[in-house]
């Protein structure tokens, strides 16, 4: 009986998760990460029900291990980028509203290193850009996650507005998927708007 309940519970969870994933249709503005940040993708994306944290949301084309576009819609002062899995044993660094844009790549790096348990993470070129009309930082990075030992490349765009961190990152395996998906991701980034209300 106990076994049957367990199986049933697992199925329900799976169904719910499946029901939560949804299609993002092209050429329509959509608010992301339950935030004032909106984007208008020119192609189809899949929005995953599972979210890395309270103020974030993940889109993918082929699956989140192959291409992963993540929106962070206003990380508040004192908050972490991701949901903390082991707050006591492996606490994540916090965003601070006094951070400079140049501090953001470091915050991303340290959060990834701890969350993924990896020591292979490097930040590459850091440049000034605009994101949703705000002064922003663009940074390239690459890392190897411990589970699959796979080399991934990433690109991040981050702005600090009203004391909150707004960021979009795209990452994919360095072999094929990053180059194949980066332009599509950049189009989404370039369409971003931030409601000033």
């Amino acid at each position, binding site marked *: 009986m106990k076994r049957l309940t367990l199986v049933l519970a697992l199925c329900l969870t799976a169904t719910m998760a499946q029901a939560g994933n949804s299609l993002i249709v092209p050429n329509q503005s959509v608010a992301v990460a339950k935030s004032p940040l909106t984007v208008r993708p020119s192609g189809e994306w899949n929005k995953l029900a599972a979210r890395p944290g309270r103020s974030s949301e993940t889109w993918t084309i082929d699956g989140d291990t192959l291409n992963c576009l993540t929106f962070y819609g206003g990380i508040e002062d004192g908050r972490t980028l991701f949901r903390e899995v082991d707050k006591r044993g492996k606490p994540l660094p916090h965003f601070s509203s006094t951070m400079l*844009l140049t501090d953001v790549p470091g915050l991303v790096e340290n959060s990834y290193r701890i969350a993924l348990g990896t020591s292979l993470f490097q930040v590459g070129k850091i440049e000034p850009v605009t994101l949703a009309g705000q002064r922003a930082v663009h940074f390239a990075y690459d890392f190897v996650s411990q589970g699959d030992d796979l080399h991934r490349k990433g690109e991040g765009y981050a702005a600090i507005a009203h004391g909150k961190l707004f960021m979009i990152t795209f990452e994919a395996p360095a072999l094929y998927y990053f180059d194949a998906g980066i332009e599509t991701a950049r189009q989404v980034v370039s369409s971003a708007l931030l409601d000033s209300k």
Partner: protein
Amino acid sequence: MMRASWPRGVALLAVALASAVAANAPKSKLTALPPYAGAYEPKTVDERGVWMEADEDERKLRDSKFVVKDAALNAYVRQVLCDTVGADRCRGVRLYIMRVPAFNASMAPNGTLIVWTGLLLRIRSEAELAGVLGHEFAHFEERHTLAQFRQQRFATDVAAWASFFGAYGAVVQQAAIGSIYSFSRDQEKQADLRAFGYLAASKYRAEAEADIWDRLMDEADASAAGRKQRSQRYDGVAFFASHPTSLERSQYLHKLATTNGNDGEDGAATYGKAMADWRGEFLGDQLKLNDFAGTEYLLGQLAREGWTSELLFARGELYRMRGNPRDLLSAAQFYRDALTKGSTDPLLHRNLGMVLLRSAAIGEGRQELEQYLTLRPDASDASMISALIEQSRTN
């Protein structure tokens, strides 16, 4: 089963060591090691199974991007191992240095020796490294993994490594102090004694092995206190449970040193030289773990003979990353101290400039950033720093 067996093992070891005493002019009273059996093939079903898993793990390990391939570093660590256990024992060992910022070393039953870079950062001398490597080799030579496997199937180092490379998302323990050895207390003591034998017969000072333990436990305490956790130092569970207590360990190792002699070299200077090119990198990995108190303790330990510009820079980074207003002021001071000590690292100016800007010392901050760009005009973040300078003028 295990508890009943070790006194006999230790007795055999003692006999073997004692019989060897007369053979050579001793550095210590314990000299020549028992002869090494050489190539060994697994004999039982259990053992073949353990070896098969270890071989499979090694195949994955060999191709892992986490392995540090640097030839000089590998040759150095191997040389210390060979100097410790002797050329014939050392010959069949495959060494893998893994880029993981935690203190760990392990040896699989098929002769795969794994050393994490966090261990290399914390070790102070060749003799200490020899102590750890000797201890791991002792587990290997005594075939403890097999005994442990029989006793508790999943409590082996092999299993720990299988989970390292296992299911997607599996995360290795990144706490500053990992579970260095997952053997029973009896096996630990047995390995300690045998490792002491290796060191006594080598050029190294045998007692060095005991020195590491107090520092590790102090660091674990500092991490726990910083994270508002209670110390696990005397816990009957987790990491230290499988080890003799520090007091017990310290007592029997000191006693051995007293009775058998404690001559030999520490090799602190040669170790420092061998690690010179790597310390900055390993420190960088440690700093990014968000373990303020543990890292502060570790930096204090590394700086026991004075704060070098490299350590001051690292301390500045630690405070900058925590980023409280008071931390930013401290960080600025550490960066300045590093500059005073003669460091020419352009990153010092960059990061000093950033903490000054965050501390509202705009003019000074801008000067430092400009200095950074002068020293490194083609830096990967040059355009961003230029933008920051411009922004600081308009704000």
